[in-house]
């Protein structure tokens, strides 16, 4: 049939000649897409969650810091973090918050014991759940109040090791900007219990004003400006834009640059996911190839008749390729119907794996504070999966289509 619409109609009717075979093929596509969407969506959600947690536990999705801080993260590597700069950074449309922070190592001592810890000094009045992972994890007492609160919040295990309770004294000792050992007295305001061993056993939260006072910092001095963006995938672009606003020695690093081990872990996991998905897609394409090839071989006589009636090779090729197109389109529709409900459930309810990991877990140095796995696929990955299905289906149709166009009419007609 000369015009494309009639070829498409003929192809559509052809694929329903053997309904059971077509249904099995469509199920194969739907299952392949379901698998690809769930694996990719699980990765997108969990890696995104890890990146956000890592950002909340430290320098944000983008971190402004001293150019040497990454190599030697000492408290004398500071940057200017005044309100004008943070306000200017926050004018970037992708930036949600730009918050000054001071972080480093400290020694905590009580009458009973002394332990090393990692401290993070924040302005509690500017932080919320989207910028600090610990606000919802207070198990006793309260969070610090305001930038000049002289108290401390400790991880639960650390408090236990120090044998300290709420309102009890703790002596902080750290090295200040000029390399001198400085100490300060503080009182425990609260205890955080995250379930992650590294946080519970080694975290101390201070107010930023208190930390600056102890370390001899100027009022606008910090070790980092933690910048939080709407979508962590834009971190590199945001970092590049922010660099233009900075003066040496300040630099802006995306989370991939400041946490290369996490970036490497995620890249490796995503790579292995894609390899597995390619394998599934190849299996799916083999199923489609089988369907189309068997269907063409069963119709050799018919193709011969059509060639005898004047169908060109190209038209017969196009006819079978149209059958591939219909299988791809209908396969995607079936896949959407098949995947949708399960995706919705896993996107909204998630999978609670707390029973598997106990109270807490860490992956690539990042504490997983919420033991629920959600599926939340990026739209670009949906398009990629749909594209791969279409390409795989069309590729699977190429040889059967080529074969259909090369049936010698006289030979085919003899096949009674």
């Amino acid at each position, binding site marked *: *049939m*000369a015009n494309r619409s*009639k070829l498409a109609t003929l192809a559509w009717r052809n694929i329903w*000649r053997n309904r059971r075979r077509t249904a099995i093929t469509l199920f194969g596509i739907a299952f392949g897409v379901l698998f690809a969407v769930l694996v990719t969506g699980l990765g997108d959600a969990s890696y995104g969650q890890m990146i956000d947690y890592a950002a909340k536990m430290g320098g944000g999705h983008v971190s402004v810091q001293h150019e040497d801080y990454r190599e030697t993260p000492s408290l004398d590597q500071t940057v200017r973090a005044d309100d004008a700069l943070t306000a200017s950074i926050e004018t970037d449309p992708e930036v949600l918050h730009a918050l000054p922070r001071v972080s480093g190592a400290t020694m905590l001592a009580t009458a009973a014991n002394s332990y090393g810890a990692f401290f993070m000094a924040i302005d509690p009045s500017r932080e919320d759940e989207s910028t600090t992972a610990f606000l919802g994890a207070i198990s006793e007492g309260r969070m610090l109040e305001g930038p000049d609160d002289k108290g401390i919040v400790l991880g639960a295990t650390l408090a236990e090791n120090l044998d300290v309770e709420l309102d009890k004294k703790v002596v902080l000792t750290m090295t200040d900007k000029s390399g001198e050992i400085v100490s300060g007295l503080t009182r425990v305001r609260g205890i955080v219990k995250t379930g992650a061993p590294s946080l519970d056993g080694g975290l101390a939260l201070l107010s930023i004003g208190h930390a600056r006072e102890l370390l001899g910092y100027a009022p606008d001095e910090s070790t980092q400006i933690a910048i939080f963006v709407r979508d962590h995938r834009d971190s590199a672009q945001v970092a590049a834009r922010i660099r233009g606003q900075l003066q040496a020695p300040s630099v802006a690093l995306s989370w991939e640059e400041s946490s290369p081990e996490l970036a490497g872990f995620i890249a490796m996991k995503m790579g292995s996911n894609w390899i597995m998905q390619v394998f599934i897609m190849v299996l799916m394409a083999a199923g489609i190839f089988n369907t189309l090839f068997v269907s063409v071989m069963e119709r050799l006589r018919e193709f011969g008749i*059509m060639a005898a009636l*004047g169908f*060109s090779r190209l*038209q017969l090729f196009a006819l079978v390729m149209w059958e591939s197109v219909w299988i791809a389109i209908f396969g995607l529709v079936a896949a959407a119907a098949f995947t949708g409900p399960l995706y919705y459930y896993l996107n909204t309810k998630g999978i609670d794996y707390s029973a598997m990991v106990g109270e807490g877990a860490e992956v690539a140095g990042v504490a997983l504070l919420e033991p629920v796995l959600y599926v939340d696929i990026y739209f670009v990955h949906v398009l990629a999966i749909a594209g791969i299905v279409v390409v795989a289906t069309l590729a699977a149709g190429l040889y059967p289509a080529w074969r259909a166009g090369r049936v010698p009419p006289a030979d085919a*007609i003899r096949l*009674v």
Partner: protein
Amino acid sequence: MSNDNAPIVKLEEVTKVYRQGETEVRALRGLSFEVQAGEFLALTGPSGSGKTTALNMIGALDTPSSGKVWVEGRDLSGLSRKQLSEMRRDRIGFVFQAYNLIPVLTAYENAEMVMRLQGKAEEERRRLAMELLAEVGLEGLEHRRPDQLSGGQQQRVAIARAIASRPAVALADEPTANLDSATAEMLLDTMEKLNRETGVTFIFSTHDPRVMNRARRILHLVDGKLDRDERKD
């Protein structure tokens, strides 16, 4: 066509050798004959005499091992694959023993299919297809699919399909073999009428006496050669 008296079909010393494994099968052994436009002709002979092979040569479905075939003055051996395809589409109609309709298309769609390949306008296709289906006695059955039609009705659709493209030659390979007598006679009536009214040349491959009775010329083939050319005046 070079002139009005030129044959519409001409075979000259055509041979066809098939290989079946190690065995050589000589289906045609120097077959030569001419057919004039408007003839109603039967090729007959015992099984293996080369009837269907000769029809395939005329229909540009197969190529001779040696010799030449002309249709409307065109040497088929000089045509490209595309030109042969266009020749089949525009100048030759086929009616097969097993009807060979496209099973997913209705009677109407089967009848208009070749016209669609020719790129004829929808209105013209519709008019011609409906006229021909009425002509072969299928009025009211246009929207039935082949599996909803009897064997005789399917063969009528096949005839309508063969004629719809206004071919120079209609080739019918054992068209009545699967039909009962009454249906076969009805079909032959139809084909005779189309031959008379449209001038389409009909060439049958058959050993059905009902067809041979109607044919105005019979070519008897034996062992791939023309044994006898019988004309009825």
